[in-house]
């Protein structure tokens, strides 16, 4: 057994207050990174919640539809063309639009709400709770309500579960809530309704029934979505986009990431976290090197090579990263729970993100160490004595 002097650790804890300040600073930076990434992922997750929870193999949309929140209609006849393609089991047309919802308990308050319409006899539209209400929405002016919609729409879920009839107006038309389902909000959708295609046109009388917003294609069991997509693409003209589920998800995320400021804003937040952390770690390591210059020069005079000192500073950086990461991830979990409760967004810690941020933290500390190490060059024994 041959225990060497743990110089990095001893140097680091020599000044307890400084170490504490450094940890607090790095922890702050790391939490900032975590929160930014958490919100960004939550935004992306929520914005594709619809895309990933619906049951379909291939989606058909207008090429003009950048995001599901602002759908552009296309000719329903395109969907009939697709039915005959090999591997396609069924095609479900879906209508989407934004209507004005009146709060059932405070009728003076109105708010835009997202409305999905589909033919309830077709199986293609599936969320938890939809099947229970499938028959109910065949009745005129009956809708299903997303229980996870924002509270501003009124306590619809509570009222419904209490057995009350919930009636209100959408686009000045009287409707009643015939059931609940669970989807959840996103940055683009605060709340949603599902109803039959016929009811949809009652709510949106100006909409042309021959034009739909989304086509959901169910595939034969075992059919390869990519090959079916290629086959469909071969027979339809270019006025619709044929997307597998993955394509659809990617397209939606790309919109939010590239066509809005959101990706930039969160990316900027992450960078700010990194910058804050880097500067703090640099400050701490630099002042350690500065204060210990004579001591480090002495070590060189004794015969320690330069790379040993580089190693000491690097180890200090990694130690600092680990010391700050532990409280940071705990704090982040608390923030996530709070933020999730406040926004209804699916914000949660993933192993992948935990590892990514740990890597970033270590990288950040090592970058600072790399900068501080330049100061080590002046630890020349001959210059100091």
């Amino acid at each position, binding site marked *: *057994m*041959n*225990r*060497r*002097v743990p*110089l990095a650790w*001893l*140097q680091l*804890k*020599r000044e307890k207050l400084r170490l504490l300040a450094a940890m607090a600073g790095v922890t702050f930076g790391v939490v900032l990174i975590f929160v930014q990434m958490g919100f960004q992922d939550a935004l992306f997750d929520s914005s594709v919640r619809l895309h990933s929870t619906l049951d379909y193999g291939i989606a058909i949309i207008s090429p003009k539809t950048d995001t599901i929140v602002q759908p552009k209609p296309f000719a329903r006849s395109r969907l009939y063309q697709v039915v005959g393609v090999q591997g396609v089991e069924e095609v479900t047309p879906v209508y989407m639009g934004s209507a004005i919802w009146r709060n059932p308990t405070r009728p003076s308050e109105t708010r835009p709400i997202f409305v999905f319409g589909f033919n309830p006899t077709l199986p293609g539209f599936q969320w938890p709770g939809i099947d229970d209400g499938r028959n109910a929405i065949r009745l005129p002016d009956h809708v299903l309500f997303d229980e996870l919609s924002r509270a501003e729409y009124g306590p619809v879920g509570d009222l419904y579960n209490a057995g009350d009839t919930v009636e209100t107006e959408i686009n000045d038309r009287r409707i009643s809530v015939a059931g609940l389902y669970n989807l959840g909000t996103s940055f683009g959708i605060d709340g949603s309704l599902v109803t039959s295609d016929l009811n949809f046109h009652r709510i949106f009388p100006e909409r042309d029934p021959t034009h739909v917003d989304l086509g959901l294609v169910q595939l034969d069991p075992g059919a390869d979505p990519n090959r079916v997509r290629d086959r469909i693409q071969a027979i339809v003209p270019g006025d619709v986009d044929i997307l597998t589920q993955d394509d659809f998800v990617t397209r939606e995320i790309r919109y939010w990431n590239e066509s809005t400021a959101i990706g930039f804003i969160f990316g900027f937040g992450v960078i700010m976290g990194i910058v804050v952390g880097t500067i703090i770690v640099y400050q701490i390591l630099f002042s350690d090197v500065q204060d*210990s210059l*004579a*001591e480090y*020069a*002495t*070590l*060189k*005079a*004794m*015969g*320690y*090579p*330069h790379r040993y000192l580089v190693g000491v500073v690097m180890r200090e950086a990694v130690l600092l990263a680990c010391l700050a990461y532990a409280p940071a991830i705990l704090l982040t979990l608390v923030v996530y729970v709070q933020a999730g409760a406040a926004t209804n967004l699916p914000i949660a810690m993933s192993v992948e993100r935990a590892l990514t941020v740990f890597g970033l933290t270590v990288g950040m500390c090592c970058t600072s160490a790399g900068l501080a190490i330049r100061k080590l060059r002046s630890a020349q*024994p*001959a210059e100091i*004595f």
Partner: protein
Amino acid sequence: MATLSPIEVTDASYFYGQGALRKQILFEASAHVDEGEIVILTGPSGSGKTTLLTLMGALRSAQEGSVKIFGEELKGAPEATLTAIRRRIGYIFQSHNLLKALNVEQNVQMAVQLGERSSRNDERNRIEEVLDRVGMIDHIAKRVDQLSGGQRQRVAIARALVNRPKVILADEPTASLDKESGRDVAQLIQQLAREEGASVVLVTHDNRILDIADRILHLEDGHMKELREALAGEASRALGVLAEHDPEAHRNLLLFSKALARVANSDRDIADEEVEVIRRVLSEEAALSTGEVDFVVSLAVAQVRSETAAEGPGGDTLADEQKQRLRAALRAVAEADGELSDSEREEISRIEAELSL
């Protein structure tokens, strides 16, 4: 085959700075230190002592000349060679330069773990042994800031010596210590070096520790000087200072010593008993301080020695060449006022006769 000197510096020159600001610090300095020899390097501040020491310690490289440590040329040597040499040298710094984040044991261990790998037990034993020898074993677990200056320097010595280096370099190790601990530290270095048979180069301008040296080297303005040259200059400067600031004492002390020398010289000898008596009389009757007594006696003895020197067997204590020089010097002095008077000529022949020139 001649034994290799562990330290061999030949015509080493060193410059600080670049271009127009380039300043030469060492001028073709040469020095060698034999195995087990303790050499003290003195000189006024700015004379290049520390620079020379750092050259020996492989901490910097001479731009001209040669510096060989353990037979290895350091001039132009790669960093790896310098680092390897540094590990074989025990370097004691002016300020202790201990690592403040570590305790006493860990500071010494920093040196131990540079050496060959050995078991933790063995390392621990060596650390305890060396701390015991410097008298710091009771403080093994203390932090550096809990120690006094002298104690810190002792730990620094332990750190320098724990790997049993054959060369020990010490840069003013007593400078930051009071008189007593300075003396202790110097003696400790001497004693430990003797026990290990290590060569020591100790830079100092602390005259109180000169006596531990086997040999004294003197640097002035980057030039190596003979000791007599340096000390004679020093002594004349000291007399000059005394003459200027306390002319009365200057005159009295010189008078005392001249008178004493004449009495002692009348029987051509100054015996130890005589010296004892003179010392007592001077301090008791003439009420001189110890330093003043030393001065008067040394000066008197020196004068007697100079008179008797020429009368050794055969009167050949002076070489012919030196006789020539002395004769020329006498003439030059006599002629300095423009003419050579009779009385001067007379005095010269008397001196020449006395010194059998």
